[in-house]
């Protein structure tokens, strides 16, 4: 059943983020900034760029291997969300039909290049964002957001949301199980029952919010959620960000792939 699986995936990402590796120990702010710069660099390439994007896979690969994140897990998540980008991109080869010589005798339409470019960018950006969250506990990401200037109300909203996703999803799971036990085939899974389920879930949510609020009041809540763990930027973090910038700069402005190809051609001539 897909519901259980989705829930399991959410929890798995959370558990992965509490490992203790070099990547996990980096300051969340440093990782956030590095990831954003990476995303920005990747999407700044022109629409026909394929070759120059390939070196950028180094970044997710390093995150994945040093951070000890299972490759197949990330791959599966990337594939699950890929249909939209593929759907939009697949029109490029059909519509952009100008022919381009690739090898002597082999020509393909220019649209294929922009399609592959979209696919590569998609894989790079999605995996980078997933790896950020797989190597950083979500509360730390939230505090990084706050330190980087997001409104504090929004940040506490995120923290709350994350804290109660698991609770409410379990609640929803119980309701859905009950529905599925009582419905055979398609009967009972229609819109009417769905509306009532959502209604019930909403009422339970409101009641829960009330209980939470009183519990928080009795523990001295004053409208803000303070940070528990202080994080400090260390020299390692600075080195990390600096080397990321250097690496992005080199791969962005020098055609590394072409160069490697040329050297290889010279060698094997």
């Amino acid at each position, binding site marked *: 059943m897909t519901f259980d699986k989705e829930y399991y995936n959410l929890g798995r990402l959370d558990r992965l983020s509490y490992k203790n590796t070099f990547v996990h120990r980096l300051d969340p702010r440093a990782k956030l900034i590095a990831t954003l710069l990476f995303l920005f660099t990747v999407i700044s390439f022109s629409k026909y760029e*394929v070759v120059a994007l390939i070196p950028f896979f180094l970044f997710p690969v390093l995150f994945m291997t040093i951070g000890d994140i299972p490759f197949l897990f990330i791959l599966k998540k990337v594939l699950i969300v890929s249909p939209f980008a593929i759907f939009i991109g697949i029109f490029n080869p059909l519509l952009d039909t100008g022919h381009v010589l690739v090898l002597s005798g082999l020509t393909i339409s*220019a649209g294929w290049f922009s399609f592959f470019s979209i696919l590569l960018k998609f894989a790079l950006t999605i995996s980078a964002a997933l790896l950020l969250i797989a190597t950083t506990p979500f509360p730390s990401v939230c505090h990084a957001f706050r330190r980087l200037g997001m409104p504090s109300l929004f940040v506490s909203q995120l923290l709350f949301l994350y804290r109660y996703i698991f609770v409410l999803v379990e609640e929803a799971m119980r309701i859905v199980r009950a529905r599925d036990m009582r419905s055979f085939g398609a009967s009972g899974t229609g819109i009417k029952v769905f509306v009532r389920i959502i209604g019930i879930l909403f009422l339970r949510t*409101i009641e829960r919010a009330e209980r939470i609020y009183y519990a928080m009041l009795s523990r001295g809540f004053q409208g803000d959620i303070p940070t528990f763990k202080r994080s400090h930027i260390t020299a390692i973090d600075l080195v990390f960000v600096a080397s990321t910038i250097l690496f992005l700069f080199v791969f962005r402005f020098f055609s590394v792939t*072409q160069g490697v190809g040329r050297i290889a051609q010279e060698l094997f001539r």
Partner: protein
Amino acid sequence: MHMADALLSPAVGTTLWAGTLAAMGYASKKMKEKFDDKIIPLMGVLGAFIFAAQMINFTIPGTGSSGHLGGGMILAIMLGPYAAFLVMASVLTVQALFFADGGLLALGCNIWNLGIYPCFLVYPLIYKPLVGDSRSPRRILVASLVSVVAALQLGAFSVVVETLWSGKSELPFGTFVLLMQPIHLAIGIVEGFVTAGVINYVRNARPEILESITASRPLGAEISVRKVIITFVVLVVVTGGALSWFASTHPDGLEWSIEKVTGKSELPTQEHGIAPVLKSIQEKTAFLPDYNFGPASTEEKKKEESASWPGIEAGTSVAGIVGSAIVLGMVMLIGLVIRSFRRRHT
């Protein structure tokens, strides 16, 4: 449907992030003005509720396919626009991070498309006037249907415009609109029924709950249309300014001219001189105008000023292919080495 990083250009991504951040700052400022800290846990838990509700799917009658809830309108109706916008933004952030829906740079677009429209445009301008003070279920049904459909149409249209501005897709404007709008009309109708159903259900089952939320929510009732419009004008001016700044720093003009095309085709009122304008734009936007330029290898110059073809000399592309294979191999090798190294040490 979520916008994706891969279809986005930096200019469009940053511009919409700027607009979204401004709206977030504005919403939190507004919330703080009449602050009741009871709303913090309520908002948080309702965000989680939207999440849980989105994971439950139902069968759409007659089609056999299944749908799920978007939730922006329900939140706006229950919590008022400011709180609802912040909740929606947080839901989309968590979705972008955990389910990789869209991506981090596209998150600005997604919050804009799915948060700003229902909360700041449709709710005050369509839902409130339609429902008024009435509590009749039928009125709520009509209002929710119209609002959800309107919000989703606006959102879908924005996805089209954002994609075209970014210039990564070849889809012509008309085709893309025809693909997106009808799908979202169908989704909107289903979701409109669900939204109305949930609101009426809650109102019947526990009317006092809705009343108490209404009482504790800040400014929900007295939001003025004028203010909303002014805010929008400011947002549009700011984002437009940012966009043109970015566009002029990109002398390649590709993004800029596409933006002009879509800008023009949105305003069909200009009867005079539309044909020559369109023609000149078409000349400008003909992809790869210098398509069959000579075999000059331009890899030195193909930094960001030339968004055109990176040289089609056969030697260059061979080097490209060989280089790609080698670089990919090296990246994989690095990964494998680190991984086996780690395995040995743990």
